């Protein structure tokens, strides 16, 4: 039975990835899509209102600036909604404190969805809907757009990185919105509620009364999973029966989380060589397989788990969620086995197995560049990628992208202890279990994952401000550096010669997977040893 669930999730998400991968490839190179005429008309309407020329190309700096400015405006809007939700319609609640509003806005705009609040208690329906659902489209669309620009950098000389506003519009209107709409209807059918009321008060069987929080959950749930967002309508996230009512909804949500991240290597294969795409897909699946194997090697629960999912359904969902940096949870982290948690750390450290929508693919290409450089050193060949020389600047930028992550995790973890802020939340006595929770908090923030142990207990100024800045740096610094890499590749000459080190095939997949593992293990092993390995 478990094997059937696993097969349906894998075959379902891979099968859909083949379809959507082809579609993404068409979007990246502006090829004709199904319904092109209709879609084109709608998009042109948007461009007219926005005031952009769809043929105008951006440099990497302009593209990055457009992402940042658009995201800042969106985050400003969300923050204002959260601060002043008391004077906005649809079951108003008291406005959030400044630090919590900043944390939440940063969290949702960076595609993290770390939650230091309890949605059903602290947010109005207006905030959940106009604030969060809106941002759940903006954040993944920005990441996918960045990946489009990044991939265009490799296609051919001066192909151009594209126009952010055009990509952003097309991604939301012709990819995220239609899939979310149909997925929301399917979730509704399976039992996820959808209403503008914030609570229902009903009698119980024994004649008492029960007040149950409710809301536009289905509309949020679908884009939450599809967009690697992960922020729950309810504090209990996807373990809440209104977010994830049955075993079927659980499987469907797993597929939704995996489909876009897995579509990217397929799109890449269409554009840059089938073998290369399949090899990257294989490397991603190997990493994901290791996470799953770790999780399934040990029984989780039953405390902290939902009866309708059991150990297998919980582990599969949680590993899929953390692997795609969605960060949704259908079980309490404290209910998961130590091995499963080690799997979560692996996913958050690598960020590319398969990683979040768009950014996971970009990160994997950074690993490819680093691998080519290291292997080139070993065999004494000048590293090349897509028939272009990899120069020292590319390697430096790629190394920066890799090194930002441990810096953003380890420095604030140490600060949380030296300033006693870790102790004030987790107790004076530091154990491997409490250290794990601190390490997890910043790993999740930096990886833009969003799952966490601390939850509302971290709703203090220190934790709100520190994780907010880590999320912002963890999002925009790597995207900026990766776009810089693409910006220089797009100007570079291609030599029509055989690659000195082939970037496809079994050997390359093996070398790439081992490299990713070694780089990650060398960087993080000591901290894992102090935390999850010692539990």
């Amino acid at each position, binding site marked *: 039975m478990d094997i059937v669930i696993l097969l349906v999730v894998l075959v379902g998400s891979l099968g859909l990835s083949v379809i959507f991968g082809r579609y993404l490839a068409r979007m990246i190179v502006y090829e004709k899509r199904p319904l092109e005429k209709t879609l084109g008309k709608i998009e042109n309407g948007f461009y007219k209102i926005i005031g952009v020329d769809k043929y105008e190309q951006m440099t990497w700096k302009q593209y990055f600036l457009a992402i940042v400015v658009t995201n800042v405006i969106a985050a400003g809007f969300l923050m204002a909604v959260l601060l002043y939700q008391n004077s906005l319609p649809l079951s108003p609640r008291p406005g959030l404190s400044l630090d919590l509003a900043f944390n939440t806005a940063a969290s949702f705009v960076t595609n993290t969805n770390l939650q230091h609040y309890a949605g059903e208690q602290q947010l109005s329906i207006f905030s959940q809907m106009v604030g969060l659902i809106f941002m759940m489209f903006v954040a993944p669309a920005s990441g996918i757009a960045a990946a489009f620009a990044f991939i265009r950098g490799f296609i051919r000389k001066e192909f151009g990185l594209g126009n952010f506003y055009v990509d952003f519009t097309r991604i939301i209107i012709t990819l995220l919105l239609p899939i979310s709409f149909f997925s929301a209807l399917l979730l509704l059918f399976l039992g996820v509620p959808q209403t503008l009321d914030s609570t229902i008060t009903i009698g119980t069987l*024994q004649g008492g009364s029960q007040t149950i929080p409710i809301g536009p959950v289905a509309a949020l749930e679908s884009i939450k999973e599809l967009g690697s967002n992960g922020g729950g309508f309810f504090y*209990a996230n996807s373990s809440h029966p209104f977010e994830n009512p049955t075993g079927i909804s659980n499987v469907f949500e797993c597929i939704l989380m995996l489909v876009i991240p897995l579509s990217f290597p397929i799109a890449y294969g269409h554009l840059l060589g089938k073998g290369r795409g399949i090899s990257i897909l294989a490397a991603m699946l190997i990493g994901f397989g290791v996470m799953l194997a770790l999780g399934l090697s040990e029984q989780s629960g039953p405390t902290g788990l939902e009866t309708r999912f059991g150990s297998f359904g919980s582990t599969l969902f949680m590993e899929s969620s953390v692997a795609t940096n969605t960060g949704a949870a259908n079980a309490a982290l404290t209910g998961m086995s130590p091995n499963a948690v080690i799997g979560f750390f692996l996913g958050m450290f690598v960020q590319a197995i398969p990683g979040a929508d768009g950014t996971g693919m970009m990160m994997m290409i950074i690993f490819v560049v680093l691998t080519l450089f290291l292997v080139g050193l070993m065999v004494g060949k000048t590293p090349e990628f897509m028939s272009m020389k990899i120069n020292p600047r590319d390697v430096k930028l790629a190394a920066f992208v890799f090194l930002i992550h441990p810096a953003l995790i380890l420095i604030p973890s140490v600060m949380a202890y030296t300033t006693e802020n870790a102790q004030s939340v987790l107790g004076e006595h530091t154990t491997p279990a409490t250290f794990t929770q601190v390490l997890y908090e910043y790993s999740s923030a930096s990886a833009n994952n969003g799952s966490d142990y601390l939850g509302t207990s971290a709703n203090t100024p220190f934790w709100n401000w520190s994780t907010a800045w880590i999320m912002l740096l963890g999002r925009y610094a790597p995207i900026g550096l990766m776009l810089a890499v693409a910006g220089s590749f797009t100007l570079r000459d291609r030599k029509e010669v055989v690659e000195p080190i082939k970037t496809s095939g079994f050997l390359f997949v093996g070398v790439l997977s081992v490299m990713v593992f070694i780089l990650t293990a060398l960087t993080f092993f000591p901290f894992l040893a102090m935390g999850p390995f010692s539990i």
Partner: protein
Amino acid sequence: MRTIKSKVFSPAIRIIVLMIITTGVAYPLLVTAVGQTVLPSQSNGSQVILNGKVVGSELISQNYNSTKFFHSRNSTDSGSGVDPDITPANALSQIPGISNSTGIPANALRTLVELDIERNKETNALVFAPDYVRVLNINVELVNQYPEVYTQEITPKGGN
């Protein structure tokens, strides 16, 4: 400065306003309209009706203090705190107690549990979930089949 303003800020603000309307307002309202029209039961929280009265949501656990009912998990034992289900083992272990307080034969209770497990299996297309018992459904079924046993329990308290 002027070029930056017109080239970056103006399209950025416009695209955000457009997306607030499209994704933050139109999309959830459209899903609500379709849901409330086509799937009103699910849209409003899968409310369970017994003798014309709402007695809970099928998806949300409730507290039972009577020994005549099957009991849910303690709220902090699950991930959600409102887990509507219990394992078959848990349900079976409650049967002797319920049989004692109600006089309903243990065999009949066991059959009810097994039927509920089968129904939940069908909900999950046989393979997509482990076996479980949905507590509210089975308690409602008890009241339906043995109304005389439960007259005390289902009378509203507090004179209402």
